């Protein structure tokens, strides 16, 4: 059976087991219809021109986790930021792992989506925010239909999440092939602040397909910093659909570190609903082999005096392929918008490919919008400079790549995370330079 048919027919059994007689239930029923109608995206769609899901969709995925698997913290410690006190919401094969997690209900809520969906206490928040900003495309609708597990984060007005929150999804490989559909909801009240780090990690080479949806609401003057670490195994594919609604004077940033995986597709959407908003989209992609990373961004400016800053750096080796498709829409009302987009790429091999495409739709007449894209190789002069100081070829190349990606890295606000990303980059580049690369 094709994956689509399998999903649609599985839904019938599934829907009677969850939140019957609630508003969410109606949303689910509608969503599966939308998915049935739209299906998975194909290369015929403009937004999916350079990314084909065909090879990924052919596996016979198990859709619901059959059993609960336990993992020892010591075996998976390295996937956490463990030198930093954080809240943790951890899933193993799509099931919540209470012994690896650290949640809270003290002033703020950092807990499970499933409990928020089923608990009366959260009904109002769910009704007001669940599936409100997510788009109704095939993949998001599919996730909505099956929404069950993920992180629920609610920071009320004037609160500071006292420590960063890590959301980590493990796949143990107990299933021959597994499909995961995490659903996160992050609501940040006026003047509040939260930092979130998300990671998907497969522990074996069994195929994994994750179709994740995250909805984020940043109320007035809220600050949201979201970091995505995408450094998964070669048979793990990720479709990350993130939707962010921002209100006046809020600042939201998403950093995406795409260092590995099979096919990685980031659909990152910012919707500005107020004045004085700043949206920041930063990314570093370093891939090789046959890996594929596609960043598809949207920033929609609807009100005056807002800004957006996009900075994506990519380094592509061997036969890897990259896509950057950055869309900026500036409504007629959104005067004095400052929207910047830059996408710089280095191709280390003749066989690596990058497709970079800015799309600017500007309907206001008093705006500053710029976009720039470069594709190049490492600078020979710079390499010679390093080598003439006794630094070997490999290290010299690594230093230059690091320098290339550095301005994105320097905007990471959590020092321990920055240091971790540094180490990931050094490992990725196969070097051990005597300082924090």
């Amino acid at each position, binding site marked *: 059976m094709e994956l689509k048919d399998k999903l649609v027919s599985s839904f019938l059994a599934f829907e009677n087991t969850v939140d019957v007689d609630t508003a969410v239930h109606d949303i689910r029923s509608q969503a599966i219809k939308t998915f049935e109608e739209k299906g998975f995206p194909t290369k015929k769609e403009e937004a999916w021109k350079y990314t084909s899901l065909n090879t990924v969709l052919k596996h016979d995925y198990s859709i619901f986790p059959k059993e609960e698997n336990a993992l020892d913290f010591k075996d998976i410690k390295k996937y956490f930021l463990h030198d930093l006190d954080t809240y943790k919401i951890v899933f193993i094969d799509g099931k919540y792992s209470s012994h690896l997690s650290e949640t809270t209900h003290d002033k703020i809520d950092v807990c499970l989506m499933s409990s928020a969906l089923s608990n009366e206490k959260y009904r109002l928040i769910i009704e007001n925010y669940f599936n409100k900003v997510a788009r109704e495309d095939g993949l998001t609708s599919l996730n909505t239909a099956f929404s069950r597990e993920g992180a629920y984060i609610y920071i009320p007005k004037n609160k500071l999440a006292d420590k960063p929150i890590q959301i980590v999804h493990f796949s143990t490989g107990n299933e021959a092939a597994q499909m995961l559909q995490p659903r996160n909801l992050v609501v940040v009240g006026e003047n509040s602040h939260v930092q979130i780090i998300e990671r998907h990690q497969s522990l074996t080479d069994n195929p994994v397909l994750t179709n994740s949806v995250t909805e984020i609401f940043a109320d007035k003057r809220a600050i949201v910093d979201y970091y995505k670490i995408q450094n998964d195994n070669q048979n793990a594919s990720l479709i990350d659909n993130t939707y962010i609604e921002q209100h006046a004077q809020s600042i939201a940033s998403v950093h995406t570190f795409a260092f590995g995986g099979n096919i990685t597709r980031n659909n990152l959407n910012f919707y500005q609903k107020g004045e004085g908003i700043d949206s920041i989209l930063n990314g570093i992609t370093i891939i090789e082999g046959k890996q594929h990373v596609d960043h598809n961004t949207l920033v929609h400016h609807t009100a005056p005096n807002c800004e957006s800053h996009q900075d994506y750096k990519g380094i592509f080796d061997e036969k890897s392929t990259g896509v950057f498709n950055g869309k900026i829409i500036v409504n007629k009302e959104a005067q004095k918008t400052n929207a910047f987009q830059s996408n710089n790429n280095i191709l280390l091999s003749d066989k690596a490919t990058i497709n970079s495409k800015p799309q600017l739709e500007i309907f206001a007449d008093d705006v500053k919008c710029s976009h720039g894209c470069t594709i190049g190789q490492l*600078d*020979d*002069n*710079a390499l*010679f*400079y*390093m*080598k*003439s*100081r*006794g*630094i*070997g*070829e490999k*290290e*010299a190349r690594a*230093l*230059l790549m*690091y*320098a290339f990606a*550095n*301005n994105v*890295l*320097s905007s990471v606000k959590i020092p321990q995370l920055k240091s971790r990303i540094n180490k990931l980059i050094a490992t990725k580049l196969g070097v051990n*330079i*005597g*300082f924090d690369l």
Partner: protein
Amino acid sequence: MLEIKDLHASVEGKEILKGLNLNVKAGEIHAIMGPNGAGKSTLASIVAGKEEYEVTKGGILLEGEDIEELAAEERAHKGVFLSFQYPVEIPGVTVTNFMKTAINETRKAQGLEEMPAKDMLKKIREKSELLEIDRKFLSRSLNEGFSGGEKKRNEIFQMAMMEPKLAILDETDSGLDIDALRIVANGVNKLKSEDNAIVVITHYQRLLDHIVPDFVHVLYDGKIVKSGTKELALELEEKGYDWIKEEINA
């Protein structure tokens, strides 16, 4: 120290050096002067091991050893240093970290242990004082946003750190104001010893007032066409290069 014999070199099929001879002994300072396009910077790059140049004839010996087949980093490990005319900016890598990497990579290649952190810091402090470099400067990203003068001073700081046997200074005076020139020259002079050698490439005499050469050579059309002592530099400053061109073409 450095012996260049009948060196012919080309880039993209164009011959730039056309039979160049140069013999630099330990303890000597040589100046190479010449008009634009004579091949001065090419010579510097070839000795330091830049790959895009092809040596078609002749050879380069460092302490009697043919280094032509060695990569740039291997030459650095053997004590060759080039102060760049246009130093490269490396965002995110501080001057200090860059130097630590350079020194420890070199020590590793020489079969030595990494330099202990304490010794490294001491050395950095000493050498930065020599070049009158502010401590804050050392934690800035290498060459990023440096003025022309700062870049050149930083090159000589790197030279001081690396302690090369053979240092080639390519247009180190360009971009320096008179005070910086004096500091840089003073640094170079203090680094000079009986065991090392320095080749100064310059357009102008003014650097040579401060770094006094034992020999001055004129490079023109890919060859050394005239050699002399420091008085030759004064003569060139006064009369320009036309008389040399005429002498050759006659």
